[in-house]
């Protein structure tokens, strides 16, 4: 804190929260706007802050102090996970647990118990701890500055005084140029930012020429920066410094030199062979600069998008291997799903065959009704789940049952959906067996496991087709169509299956209501008595298997006898040929 005050007394610039706005480069002389800002500062700065709200957050990795002032400003200083922050600005780093961390935590803990002047005094009295490394010391000093510049009334008064003096100096300097009505550029806000930068760059030694012309003769050398307002600068010799011309003209004669940057604000340049070492900068069209920057930025974005798009397309067209590889991957994925579901189906066939058959029967013979029930059940599952919880919660006996209800209800719905889906797959498998397509001989009506696998493959066929078509880039639309139809197919199958499970109470209770209408009676009306295609296929398959079994049996009876005879004759031959025999 003492160092800070010494800096202020010596007039050295002070980095920190407020001081940044108090630097007064010579260029600011010209800008009435900046003068006004500077002149306003003392009035604000003399007010000692009034803390209306404080918040302290302390954790193993963080110690944060947030203060809100009566002016509405909020100030936050945080040491968190090795980083010191002032608001969003990073001040530096610290080591958790080091002297800085401990000192800060002590202060924050103290602040908790204090109010008003005592609180401010504690913040101002805080000094960086001893024994910090260079980085720690630098950060601690900045924290100290932050606290002083915001809460120390002495520092604030000193700053205010300095600002007051600067404002007075600015006023004096302005007197010389106040009458210039032609200085319309100063009212152009767009140009102000560029101008102020250019003015700051002129440095501390600057010669100002307003509403007049200036000549730098041949062979002479001007060792200062120049600000020419509403006048003509004619250079034959050398100017060692930056030049800013506002609303005027610059004429560079052959052999002339400007050792610095020439900035032009609403000014013209007539260069007949002069040299400008720092280049020429036009400040009078900041909007055009901005537009060109934006245009360039947009072009760059578009180009990068285009490049990325082209890159993606390149992969699509020029790398069929990638597409094919991806397609095969998806096909294997689908087949793996079929395998997993098929194994579940096999388990169901093994352990709960009657249930599966009952569900499959209703799914086959009451498809529409099962679908409606399935869709309704799917929609109502969530409300039923929630109502179940509410219903159980209002009774003492029910509350423990919620513990069972919450996990078991979704599980039961999932099991029902899978069982139903497999039952539908089993029906599709039976259909597939009846079609006698090539390579589907392994799907046999007499073997429910093959029916399930066959049906699952039928259900997966649209996806497999989509993946195959997806390997060819041109056929992407067809691939998407197939996928959509596959999803619809799957949803419908799941709904039918789920509905069938609900209608048969999980296959435990063959459907009773409407049996005549929807199952047996309907089947007989449609197919005629004994005309159920699945039953017929089953009978035919069974007959085929029985006949093939009978044929194999006959062959088996014949085969070993012949071989026996042959073996016996071979043995006789061996014995005949064997001298020992």
């Amino acid at each position, binding site marked *: 804190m003492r160092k800070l005050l010494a800096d202020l007394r010596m007039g050295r610039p002070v980095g920190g929260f407020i001081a940044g706005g108090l630097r007064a480069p010579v260029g600011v002389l010209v800008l009435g706007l900046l003068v006004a800002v500077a002149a306003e500062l003392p009035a604000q700065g003399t007010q000692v802050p009034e803390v209306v709200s*404080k918040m302290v*957050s*302390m954790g193993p990795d963080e110690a944060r102090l947030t203060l809100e002032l009566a002016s509405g400003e909020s100030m936050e200083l945080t040491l968190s996970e090795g980083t010191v922050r002032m608001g969003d600005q990073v001040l530096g780093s610290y080591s958790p647990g080091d002297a800085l961390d401990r000192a800060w935590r002590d202060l924050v803990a103290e602040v908790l118990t204090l109010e008003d002047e005592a609180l401010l005094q504690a913040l101002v009295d805080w000094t960086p701890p001893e024994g910090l490394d260079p980085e720690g010391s630098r950060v601690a000093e900045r924290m100290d500055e932050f606290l002083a510049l915001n809460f120390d009334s002495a520092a604030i008064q000193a700053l205010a005084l300095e600002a007051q003096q600067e404002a007075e100096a600015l006023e004096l300097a302005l007197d010389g140029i106040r009458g210039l009505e032609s200085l319309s550029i100063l009212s152009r806000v767009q140009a102000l930012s560029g101008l102020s930068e250019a003015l700051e760059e002129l440095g501390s030694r600057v010669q100002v020429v307003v509403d007049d012309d200036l000549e730098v003769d041949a062979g002479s050398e001007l060792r200062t920066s120049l600000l020419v307002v509403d006048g003509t600068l004619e250079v034959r010799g050398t100017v060692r410094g930056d030049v800013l011309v506002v609303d005027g003209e610059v004429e560079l004669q052959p052999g002339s030199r400007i050792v610095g940057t020439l900035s032009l604000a609403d000014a013209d340049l007539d260069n007949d062979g002069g040299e400008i070492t720092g280049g020429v900068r036009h400040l009078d069209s900041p909007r055009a600069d901005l537009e060109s920057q934006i245009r360039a930025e947009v072009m760059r974005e578009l180009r990068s998008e285009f490049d990325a798009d082209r890159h993606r397309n390149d992969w699509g067209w020029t790398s069929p291997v990638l597409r094919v590889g991806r397609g095969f991957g998806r096909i294997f994925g689908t087949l793996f799903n079929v395998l997993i579901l098929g194994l579940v189906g096999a388990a169901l066939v093994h352990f709960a065959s009657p249930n599966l058959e009952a569900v499959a029967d209703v799914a086959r013979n009451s498809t529409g009704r099962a679908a409606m029930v399935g869709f309704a059940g799917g929609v109502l599952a969530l409300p039923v789940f929630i109502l179940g919880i509410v219903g159980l919660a209002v009774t*003492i006996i029910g*509350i423990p049952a919620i513990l069972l209800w919450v996990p078991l209800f979704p599980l039961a719905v999932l099991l029902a959906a899978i069982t139903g889906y497999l039952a539908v797959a089993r029906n599709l498998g039976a259909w597939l067996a009846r079609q006698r397509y090539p390579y589907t001989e392994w799907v046999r009506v007499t073997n429910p496991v093959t029916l399930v696998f066959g049906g699952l493959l039928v259900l997966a066929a649209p996806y497999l087709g989509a993946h195959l078509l997806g390997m060819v880039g041109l056929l992407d639309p067809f691939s998407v169509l197939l996928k959509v139809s596959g999803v619809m197919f799957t949803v419908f199958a799941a709904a039918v299956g789920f509905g069938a499970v609900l209608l048969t109470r999980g296959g435990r209770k063959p459907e009773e209501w409407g049996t005549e209408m929807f199952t047996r009676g309907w089947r007989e009306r449609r197919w005629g008595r004994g005309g159920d295609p699945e039953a017929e296929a089953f009978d035919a398959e069974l007959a085929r298997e029985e006949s093939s079994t009978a044929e194999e049996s006959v062959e088996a009876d014949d085969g070993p006898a012949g071989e026996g005879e042959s073996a016996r004759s071979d043995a006789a031959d061996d014995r005949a040929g064997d001298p020992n025999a």
Partner: protein
Amino acid sequence: MTAREIRMRSLVPGLLALAGLLLAFPEAGTAQELEQVSASRRVDDRAPMDVRVKYGVGRLQIRPGDADVLYRMDLRFDPEHFEPVVEYSSGRLELGTETRGRNLNIKGHQDGGELDLELSPNVPMDLVLEFGAVRATVDLGGMELTDLEISTGASESTVDFSRPTRGRVRTAELHVGAADFLAQNLGNLRAERLEVGAGVGEVTLDFGGEWTQDMRVDVSMGLGALELRVPEGVGVLLEKDTFLTSLEAEGLERDGSAYRSTNWGSARHRLTVDVDAAFGSIRVVRTR
């Protein structure tokens, strides 16, 4: 608000707390590293404020503090599961904690977190307190309340009006989930009407304090025990619409479908209680 709505609203915090319990998974043995947040704010002006305090799990204490300090809060919390809430804008103040994520071991946190809050008695407040699974001790004595709403989940809560509140309370509502709830010195609450909704648990309403006006209380209970402690000097009229609910009314005489204290006609202040309950018990105790 109908009795059914009140009952359903009372059930909601309980169900939420229950759902939280169901989602909980054991974290036995994991030490909690608590963080601390302390915050305070001076009173800007005495304009009415909407104040909402929300606290999920732990111990909670609320009481009146310094007149010129709007709030002073000391919060200890587990940063893994909660985040502090300190929000102030003109006319509105929110304090407490919000839950991070869904998984929460309530049992493990009940003894860990703590919120100690002081509120200015000089600022008129529309006060909303929402507790989850907490042990709450709330003293609103001397506060200037314009409206009051207290919702508790699976908590043990004591709300005391140790001194008369200031100003007139337009609406006062207590929503109790699955909890033990004790409201003390309700006679100090300057409200003409009090609505109490309770889901499951024991609710005790103590009407001690300095009576300055008559009061009507509508109680809607799902399941549980309701005890009404009424000073002997206050006239009591109890009307009930109950199902399988026992009534033990000390010093009350039946008058048609209602029960009336013998001093109903002569009492300086009167308390009318309308109870809508199922599966529980009602007990009226006269206190000195």
